[in-house]
Each structure stands twice: as structure tokens, then as C-alpha cells.
């Protein structure tokens, strides 16, 4: 089932926030989104947009949710995480719009490769409006 997103808005520019045990830099960017309810496959739909932006191949270098160990390759590896959002908006006649949020984390041994990919994803997702996405 496809979801109609009214907007996808970046909260900030991507930034490096840590390195992991394998010496890979982690770049993070948080986003808010609003979509017509119901939204079921949120992370998968966002991952599709990330993939279309060149942010990785779903299932190998582009992962969704925390589902086990991150591959120990040099990367870049992109992770899309649902970060909870806030309460939905409602109208009196029963329409509902979900207020969603998510985090994109790019993990890479190469600092510049990780940063550049994070920037590419950020530029592609920020400001997406009135788009319909099916996972």
C-alpha cells in the first residue's frame, strides 16, 4: 500500500557524531515527515527514497531498522531508523495525518565518502512534498 507524504523536512544538516569499534565514522541526519494515515511500512518507504537518491542498495548497503549486526565492511552503509514522531493531526470529519520522524545514519571507514553520501541523502530527502511512495 502506498503512502502519500505531504512533506519530508530535515531537522538539521548531517553531522558526524561518533566512530564505531571498526573505526568507521557515523554521520546522522534527522527528519520529520507528515503523511496521510495509515502509514505501515514507513522505514521501507523512506529507504526506497534513499535508494533512489543513490543512498545504497536495500538489503545490503541500505538497511532498515535495528535487525541484528551491522556488516563489518568499510561501507558506506546506510541505516534508516524510525524515531517515533509525535501525535497525529486530526480533522473533525475523520481524516488523520501522521506526524513521523526518522533518522538516517551513514557508516563509513572513509570520512569523506560517508560525509558525501550523507549530504547526498540529505539533499534528496529534504523538501520532498506531496510525494506518494510504495515500499
Amino acid at each position, binding site marked *: 500500500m502506498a503512502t502519500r507524504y*505531504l*512533506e519530508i*523536512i530535515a531537522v538539521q544538516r548531517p553531522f558526524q557524531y561518533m566512530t564505531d569499534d571498526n573505526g568507521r565514522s557515523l554521520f546522522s541526519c534527522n527528519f*520529520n515527515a*507528515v503523511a496521510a494515515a495509515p502509514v505501515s511500512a514507513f522505514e521501507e518507504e523512506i529507504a526506497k527514497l534513499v535508494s533512489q537518491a543513490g543512498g545504497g542498495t536495500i538489503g545490503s548497503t541500505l538497511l532498515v531498522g535495528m535487525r541484528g549486526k551491522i556488516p563489518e565492511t568499510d561501507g558506506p552503509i546506510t541505516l534508516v531508523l524510525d524515531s517515533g514522531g509525535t501525535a497525529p*493531526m*486530526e*480533522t*473533525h*470529519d*475523520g*481524516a488523520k*495525518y501522521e506526524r513521523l520522524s526518522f533518522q538516517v545514519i551513514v557508516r563509513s571507514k572513509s570520512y569523506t565518502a560517508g560525509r558525501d553520501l550523507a549530504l547526498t541523502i540529505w539533499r534528496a530527502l529534504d523538501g520532498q512534498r506531496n510525494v506518494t511512495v510504495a515500499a
Partner: protein
Amino acid sequence: MSTKAVAGHGATIAIELLPVGSPGVFTVIAELNGDISWPGLSRSMTEVTPHQDDIDSYVAGRLGRESLSFSTNYIFNDTTHDHLTGLQKKIITNELFGVRLRGPGGTANTDEVIASGRVESIGHVDPVREGARTADVSIKLTKGQKIDGVQVGNS
């Protein structure tokens, strides 16, 4: 102890799209997204206290109504919003039309106000960064109305 409060969510405002061709046929205005201010009733009070009295006295003026104001998610081509049959058309043509308000779960003659009115203002906003298109609307009621089927005012 009785607990009778009810949530306000689910109130509706319906209008006659074709008050001449199809009078009495109401269509619910789409996607009301904020608080609905029902047209409150009021009377102006004039003080008539005589000099010899030691407490004030008043006479009440005629019954008046505040405007019905509400906001919606603006949908440019919705029949209740647009310029062909909706609220925009009604202010353009200065059309007098029927308005029906119902509280949450309201039905015919139950938690219901029916009146006639004209759109006195409508405008919409497109946010540049975040948020949906929204419109603010004000309707001025005119002449008599019915509250739960009971006539109030005769003109």
C-alpha cells in the same frame, strides 16, 4: 457523581451547495482542522438605572449572534471549498445558503443548529517550509435559526 462531558472531536459543519436547486441538501465541509467556534448568542445591555435607585438596572437588546468561524485543510478542488460550488463561490456571488452545525454524534434535531448565512471572509495560507495548506473561514448567520428543531427568532 455524574460524568457527562463529551469530547469535541467530530463536530461537523455542513452547507447547502445548491440552495436554489437542492434546498435542504447539506454537504459536510471537508477536513475541518481546528477548534470550531459555534455562533454564540448575546444581547447588548443598556443601563437604565434611575437616579433614586441604589443598585443598577438594565434592559436587554435584541438577540444577536457571533460569526461562525473555523479552519480547514485547504483543498482547492473540493466541492465544499472551491469557487464552483463551495465557500469561495458563495462569497463571490454573495449567496445566502443553509448552514447546519452538529455536535459530535449529533443527528437530525439533536445537538444541531440550522440557520442561513453568508460567507463574510475566506482566505488560505501556503506555508513555505512546514505544514499543510489551510484556510480560515467566517460565516455570518442571518435571520432565524433552529436549535434541535426548535425555531429561534422569526425573521
